[in-house]
């Protein structure tokens, strides 16, 4: 941007120029200070911890071990279990979030519904988003309790043979927490898709109809391609957030039974605060960071493309 002010004295111009160069950083300084102290420094610290043995509470002096911790973690069976649970949890969540979010958005976008109807149902559909993870955990522990209402309904309908231990059966628990996460997270997609659908120009559909396309073809060849940038950034962001998820699992199953719902975040928490193996916990934390960073790079790229 060119200079906005016209000042005749040369010293003033130099001063103004210097001020102009310095000002943007001044405005950013609170942000940069906070992020440096509470993001950059901690990440460097975790990285350092992951290369050292005997950190924090340990009578022995710290010892540099290079990548040994990584070797130990990556070959550990518990870690692999947690990694595969995390990927399952995240991928299924993202996929079903997408399907539910898009279906609800298309429904709410229907021209056959009045504006008031749409407004009321929009509020209901977004409702799960309002609740915090610890409350969602309580809510579903109430519903999925063996003597809870979900079992009652399913049993009455003949859909289950007996009272199911949704959250404490090793075979069911991971799917149960994934389901809870699906319920909690789809409104994020719904809202973004609603905004996206409203941005698709109506004449695209008009010309599609003139060409003889039916509803399904219009959806496939107009709606989906038009929503593509939103779909990509939603999926990547949601994938990252689901990997971050700690509270929901911590408060429903705590990673159990028998580690069947152990994800990387609960595994890290236990390694740090139950076993006090801070080096190992830091190493797992670095692995999670690496996964999220890779996905984030794709996210930033997709955002850039949307900018252009």
């Amino acid at each position: 941007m060119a200079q906005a002010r016209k000042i005749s004295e040369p010293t003033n111009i130099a001063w103004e120029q210097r001020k102009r160069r310095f000002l943007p950083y001044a405005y950013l300084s609170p942000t940069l200070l906070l992020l440096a102290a509470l993001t950059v420094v901690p990440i460097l610290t975790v990285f350092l911890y992951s290369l050292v043995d005997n950190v924090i509470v340990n009578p022995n002096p710290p010892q540099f071990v290079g990548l040994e911790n990584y070797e130990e973690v990556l070959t550990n069976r518990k870690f692999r279990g947690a990694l595969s649970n995390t990927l399952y949890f995240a991928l299924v969540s993202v996929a079903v979030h997408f399907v539910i979010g898009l279906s609800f958005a298309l429904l709410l976008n229907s021209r056959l519904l009045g504006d008031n109807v749409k407004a009321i149902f929009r509020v209901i559909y977004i409702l799960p988003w309002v609740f915090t993870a610890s409350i969602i955990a309580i809510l579903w522990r109430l519903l999925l309790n063996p003597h809870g209402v979900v079992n009652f309904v399913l049993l009455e309908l003949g859909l289950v043979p007996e009272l199911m231990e949704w959250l404490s059966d090793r075979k069911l628990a991971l799917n149960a927490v994934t389901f809870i996460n699906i319920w909690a997270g789809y409104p994020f997609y719904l809202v973004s898709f609603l905004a996206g659908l409203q941005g698709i120009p109506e004449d695209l559909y008009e010309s599609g109809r003139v060409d003889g396309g039916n509803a399904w073809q219009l959806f496939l060849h107009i709606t989906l391609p038009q929503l593509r940038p939103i779909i990509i950034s939603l999926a990547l962001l949601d994938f990252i957030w689901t990997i971050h998820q700690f509270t929901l699992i911590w408060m429903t199953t705590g990673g159990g039974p028998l580690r069947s719902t152990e994800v990387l975040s609960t595994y890290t928490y236990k390694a740090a605060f139950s076993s006090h193996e801070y080096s190992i916990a830091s190493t797992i934390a670095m692995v999670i960071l690496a996964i999220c960073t890779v996905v984030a790079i794709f996210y930033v790229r997709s955002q850039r493309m949307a900018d252009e």
Partner: protein
Amino acid sequence: MIGSRRQILVRKILIWIALILGACFAGLPVVWMVASSFKSNLEIFAYPPALIDYSFSFDAYRAVLGDPQRLRFFFNSYLVAILVTICTVVTSILAGYSFSRYDFRFKKILNLIIIGVQSVPPITLMIPYFGLIVWLGIYNSYAALVLTYMVFTLSYAIIMMTGYFNTLPRDLDEAVMIDGGGSFVTLWRILVPISLPGIVAVGVYTFMLAWNEFLFALTLTRTNDMRTVPIGIHLLMGQHSFEWNQMLALSVLGSLPVLVLFLLFQRYFIAGMSAGSVKG
């Protein structure tokens, strides 16, 4: 043609069925939670279940609201969330102004870092935080919570604020500058007042994130006088006998602030939700 009356009627009926099924999926769990909070603890898992039964009372709410310790959880949650909101809004206005109105050497890379912060897993930061917060001498204090929460609210807020400022024409601030106003005056007198919708969206979203935070509230506080509502719920769950009705009453009360914000500021709330994925 597509538009015969009968076909439209059939489609309308199908849409309504789907609409109501969806509403049950989204809303019934919540209805059940609220209804259960009015039951006595014995009737929570009664067979057969009833939405409202003979034990309907406000006892659980009385128990929660009559307990000074739990009221303190609410006070803490409000205080922390409001402080985080104010600090985040101010900081993100300054940062957003810088990104939107200036060109400078490290702009691109700083912008990237701020977007990237969103992807840093909270659990990764938690291990060093504990030591860092103790070292700073703010362990078990409001300051610890406010500063940490800002790490997770700021990047979102800055992205939203920058986006909002970008929609405002630059001629606006240049006119004020020519009249002799400094950049700071321009920002506060001109840009901030007309950016109110964007600021409200940032504020509502920040409040929600701060109100809901769990992991750091759990690790960075030790005494009950510093704990927030989500931790209060967690503490109730850790007890030997589950006081389900009180837990649910606490949950309902704990959801009210965000619910009210959502209903009052729906448009802004939704703008905050979709800011990360939809490019305006």
